[in-house]
């Protein structure tokens, strides 16, 4: 917590960028949004969003509430369509293929693009172990060496040491922060290429938040992570790239997207600067 107090957000972001050069690890495009629009009924909520997410990086989506960033992240793994009035335009490409293409098996898409929700939601009828492996059961995948997979997922989610002696207990018995890391471990078990996180720390205390942020940093070397957050300090701490969304009463737009250090130290747009320096939002 110290560095947050002593240094400006720009410092945090550039510090972090110096440890790991964004862009250098980019080999191809992981996930790309191309001209995405979204509607709920007649209401136009997102306008023409094009954004690339590079493998091995963390992209943070920030913006005031109601700017459409949660809608956008739900479009990325086709959770958008569960709202009956929802509609969209544009494309979302996973390794160059449109995930909304006619005839696509949506369950396979969601296996490759995992999601962690705002509120921790472990399955209460399952033990910790069953929760982690539930994705395999749901997708009816057979895996040899379940125990190794269980351990590695819990280790990657930073939960192994805390739960290794109580794997048979129910998921609901854990604290909120532990439950959220259990949900992360659950998403990891099906080995997704992309992990979407929709404000994963908004229901957690600061200590648990830091633990999750560490987890995100560790995971980012092996996968593409997209995180929606309303907390700018969190965006500065964990992300390589940042996209700033804003709605002026109409549909939400992507105002600016750039490496995180640039967004926080030297944004191109006046509105971005106003937002990250706390002048509104």
């Amino acid at each position, binding site marked *: 917590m110290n560095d947050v107090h002593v240094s400006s957000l720009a410092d945090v972001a550039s510090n972090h960028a110096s440890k790991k050069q964004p862009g250098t690890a980019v080999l191809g495009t992981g996930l790309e949004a*191309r*001209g995405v*629009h979204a*509607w709920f009924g007649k209401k136009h909520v997102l306008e*023409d969003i*094009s954004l690339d997410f590079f493998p091995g990086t963390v992209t943070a989506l920030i913006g005031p509430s109601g700017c459409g960033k949660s809608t956008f992240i739900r479009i990325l793994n*086709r959770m958008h*369509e569960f709202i009956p009035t*929802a*509609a*969209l*335009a*544009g494309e979302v490409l996973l390794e160059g293929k449109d995930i*909304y*293409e*006619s*005839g696509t*098996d*949506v*369950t396979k898409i969601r296996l490759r693009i995992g999601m962690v929700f705002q509120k921790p939601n472990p399955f209460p009828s399952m033990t910790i172990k069953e929760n982690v492996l539930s994705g395999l059961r749901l*997708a*009816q995948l057979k895996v040899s060496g379940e125990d190794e997979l269980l351990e590695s997922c819990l280790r990657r989610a930073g939960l192994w040491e805390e739960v290794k002696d109580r794997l048979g207990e129910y998921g609901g018995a854990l604290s909120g922060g532990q439950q959220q890391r259990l949900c992360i471990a659950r998403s990891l078990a099906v080995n997704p290429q992309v992990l979407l996180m929709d404000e994963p720390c908004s229901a957690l205390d600061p200590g648990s938040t830091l633990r999750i942020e560490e987890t995100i940093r560790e995971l980012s070397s092996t996968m593409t992570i997209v995180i929606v957050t309303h907390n700018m300090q969190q965006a500065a701490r964990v992300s390589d790239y940042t996209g700033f969304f804003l709605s002026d009463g109409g549909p939400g737009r992507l105002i600016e997207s750039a490496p995180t250090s640039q967004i926080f130290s030297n944004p191109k747009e006046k509105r971005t600067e106003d937002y990250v320096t706390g002048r509104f939002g």
Partner: protein
Amino acid sequence: MSTSIAPQVLPEKPWRPTFKRVLPDLFGALLTAVSTVLIVAVTPLKGKLGFSLTLIAMALVFSVLISGVRKDKKAAFNSVSTVFVYIAATFVLIPLFSILYEIYSRGVGALTWGIFTKDMSLSSADAPVSEGGLLHAIIGTLYLVAIATIISAPIGLLTALYIVEVKGRAAGLVRFFVQAMSGVPSIVAGLFIYAVWMIGLGNSYNAGAGAAALAILMIPTVARTSEEVLRLIPPDLREAGLALGATQWRTVAMIILPAARSGLITAIILGIARVAGETAPLLLTIGGADAINLNPFSGNSSALPYYVWKNLSLGNPESIERAWAGVMVLMLLVFIFFTLARYFSGKRTGR
């Protein structure tokens, strides 16, 4: 990427099934139908049963094959479950439509003006349906329902008020027992009234006794529906009344009950619909009659369900015809109450 500014972007729902996407399903349905017809034609399987069983089996085979080949194992499991729930839904609908169809086709012929204006006092059981009628049964049922409502509506309403408004010490217990009371077999209610009214007090059969038995069955329906209605009244209405200095009694009488009025009417009508067709308790309490009896508290009486029952037991063709006519009138009555209940409950939510 040539990113020219698109002049107009239209909302799409790419997850919606398109014709191209449902094509394999249509193909599967076609295969199912063709193979079923073929199998039924070639093999000894025949009749409605053979046809439906083959149809179900073929639907399962082809949906599993198609989704299994096109996608994977989990898609195959998923399509088995889909076929199962569609079959289950069909099985729910078949008996209902069969019942409604049979009642209509067998009852409508006997439905003449005469049966609504005459009773059976001058007609023998084996007289043609055109002779006699069921006016006495309709009058009996109306008496039964009216008296049962007079007894059970206040009790059911007070029970709901006790649970929701007064929140007395025994509220939980009362709620639990009212739930359990809705499962009391109707024949037991009849036996109870017989034990009290006939054995205990030495009276003989009459409509009042039948109505008392029906009231026992009606109370839980009225109480539970009213309870749900009262719970839907926003708490701030209640607090607004009390904050104005009104007593609880005045708040309930002038704010809660008027706000819940159409819902409470629905509760009572649902209770009536529940008991109007009850037969078993009437067999033990009203005695049965072939003539109109305008005094509900003296002398045997008839009722529509009783009329159906009696004609069914008589067993000769004319009586069976009368039974179907009686069932048709009974169902019309129940549907009228049911439609009224829906109308009033719709009014409540519409406000």
